[in-house]
C-alpha cells in the first residue's frame, strides 16, 4: 500500500465529514481570541476538496494541487491558506509520480511545515499548527506502517497540545492577547488533532 490519488480520493469525504462535525467547536475555540471562523474554514475547505475529489488526476502531484486549489477557492482565512500551502509543497514533492511510499510521510510533513513557515512568516514555538507539524514529523520519522503512522500522528498532536497549552500565542490574531492565550489550546493545533480522527477511522 502507498499514498495515491485514489487514496486521497477516498480520504477526502471522511475528512469533510469530520470537518463538519468539529466546525462548531473550532469556531468557538477560534472565537475565544480570534475571529471565530476556523470551523467555517475547515468545513468549506474540506467539502471543496471532497467535491473535487472525483476528478483527481492519476498524477499524485496534480491531485495534491487540486486539493490546494479547492482550499484557495473557498477559504481566505489563515488556516485555509496554510493548508493550501502545505498541499502545494506536497504537490511539488510528488510531481510526476503516481504514488508515494508511507515511509515518505515524514518528508511530506516536513516539507509542508517548511512551506507554511515561509508563507506565514512563523517560527517553531509560536504555538501554531507549525508546532503540531514539527512534532508529527519527528514522531513518524522512519515509520512505514500506516497504522503505526496513524498512532504516531495522534500521539504527536496530543503531545504538542499539552506542551503548548500554557504557553502564549506569538502569531496569528491570538498574539494580541498573548497573556489570555495561556491555558487555551491554539485552535489550529486543536483542529489538526481533531482531523486526525478521520484517519483513525480508516
Amino acid at each position, binding site marked *: 500500500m502507498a499514498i495515491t490519488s485514489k487514496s486521497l480520493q477516498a480520504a477526502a469525504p471522511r475528512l469533510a465529514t469530520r470537518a463538519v462535525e468539529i466546525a462548531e467547536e473550532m469556531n468557538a475555540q477560534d472565537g475565544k481570541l480570534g475571529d471565530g471562523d476556523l470551523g467555517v474554514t475547515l468545513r468549506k475547505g474540506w467539502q471543496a476538496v471532497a467535491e473535487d475529489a472525483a476528478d483527481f488526476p492519476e498524477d499524485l502531484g496534480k491531485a495534491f494541487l487540486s486539493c490546494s486549489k479547492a482550499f484557495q477557492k473557498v477559504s*481566505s482565512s489563515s488556516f485555509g491558506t*496554510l493548508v493550501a500551502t502545505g498541499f502545494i509543497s506536497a504537490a511539488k514533492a510528488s510531481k510526476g509520480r503516481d504514488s508515494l511510499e508511507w515511509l515518505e510521510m515524514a518528508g511530506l510533513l516536513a516539507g509542508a511545515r517548511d512551506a507554511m513557515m515561509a508563507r*506565514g512568516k512563523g517560527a517553531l514555538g509560536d504555538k501554531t499548527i507549525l508546532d503540531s507539524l514539527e512534532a508529527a514529523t519527528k514522531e513518524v520519522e522512519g515509520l512505514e506502517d500506516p497504522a503505526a503512522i496513524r498512532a504516531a500522528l495522534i500521539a504527536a498532536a496530543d503531545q504538542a497540545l499539552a506542551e503548548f497549552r500554557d504557553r502564549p500565542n506569538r*502569531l496569528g490574531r491570538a498574539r494580541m492577547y498573548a497573556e489570555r492565550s495561556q491555558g487555551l489550546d491554539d485552535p489550529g493545533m486543536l483542529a489538526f488533532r481533531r482531523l486526525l480522527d478521520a484517519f483513525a477511522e480508516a
Partner: protein
Amino acid sequence: MKKILNDPQAYVDEMLDGMIAAHPEIYAQPAPRVVARAGGMRPGKVGIVSGGGSGHLPIFTGYVGSGLLDACAIGDVFASPSAEQMAEAMRQANGGAGVLRLYGNYGGDVMNFDMAGETVELEDDIESSTVLLADDVVSAGPEEREKRRGVGGMVYAFKMAGAKAEQEGADLASVTAVAQRAADACRSVGMALTPCVVPQAGKPTFTLGENEMEMGMGIHGEPGIRREALRPADEIADEMIDLLLADRPIEPGSRVSILVNSLGATPQEELYILFRRVKERLEGAGATLLQPLVGRYATSMEMTGATMTLCHLDQELEALLAAPCHCAFWTVT
C-alpha cells in the same frame, strides 16, 4: 445592530453590486469580489492591484480608477479575500508589463497575496512585485517597523504609484520603487470613540465607556496605547501629531501632506476642527503643508474616530500626488 442591510451574509456582494451599478463608467466586476476598471487594462501599463477586507470604503475597491488602482480583490468585512480572488485581480490588471501588489500589512492578506503572486507567476506568466503599507506607528516600535499595520498610508501610496504607472514608459521596477518610497514616507495613527458592527458577527468590535476614547486604536478595533476620558480636539490633534513626529521628525524645509481621516461617523465638521490644529502644528514645526486631505478616505463603516497620516514628500512624490486621477471618491484634475 443599527445598520441598513438585508442578509448580513450578502452585505459585501450587495454593496459591490450597488457600487458598480452606481458608477458603471468607472468600475466593473469581472469576477465575484474582484473589481477592475470599467475601461479594461491598457496594454503596456504596469498594473497595480490591492485588496483586503470589506468595510473600509473608499479603501480598497473605491480607489480603482485612472491614476489609481487597476484592480482589487475584496473579502468579507474585515477578512482577507481568497488567494484565488487576488490571483484573478492580478490577471485583470495584467497589461503585459507586470503587476504590483500594493496593500496593507495584515497577516492573512499577506499570505494570500503571496500565494496569489506565485500562482499567476506560474500559471499566467505574470511578473509581479509587492509593496506593503506598514504605517501605523503605534502597532510596533521603530525597530520592528515592518511588523506595523497598514492604514491610511495606502491612500498616498495608491495615488502616487497610480500616477507613476500612468506615465508613458514606467516599468514595474520604477512603479514598485515609487510605491515603496510612498509607503516609507507615511506615518499614521488612529483614535476611536465608538465601534462598528461587523454584519456577520452582529456585535460591536469593541466597547468603550460613554465618555471614553482610545488613542492609537487600529481600524478593526485593535488595541491602542491608552483608554482615557474624551479630550478636547486640539489635545487629540496634538498627541497624534506628537506620535507621528516622534517616529519621523520634520526636517528643516520639509514638505509634507497630511490626511485627516474619519473612520466613518465622525463628521467632516470635526475633521476640520482637527485639521485646524494639525496645520498649526505642522507649520509650527517648520514644514510646508501641501495638498492636505480631509475627509473619509479609509473608514471602518460606522466607527467614530479619526486617523492621521503624515506623508513626507520628495519632489517626485509631490508631483505624483498632484497628478490627475479619477474614481468615485477622488478626482484630481
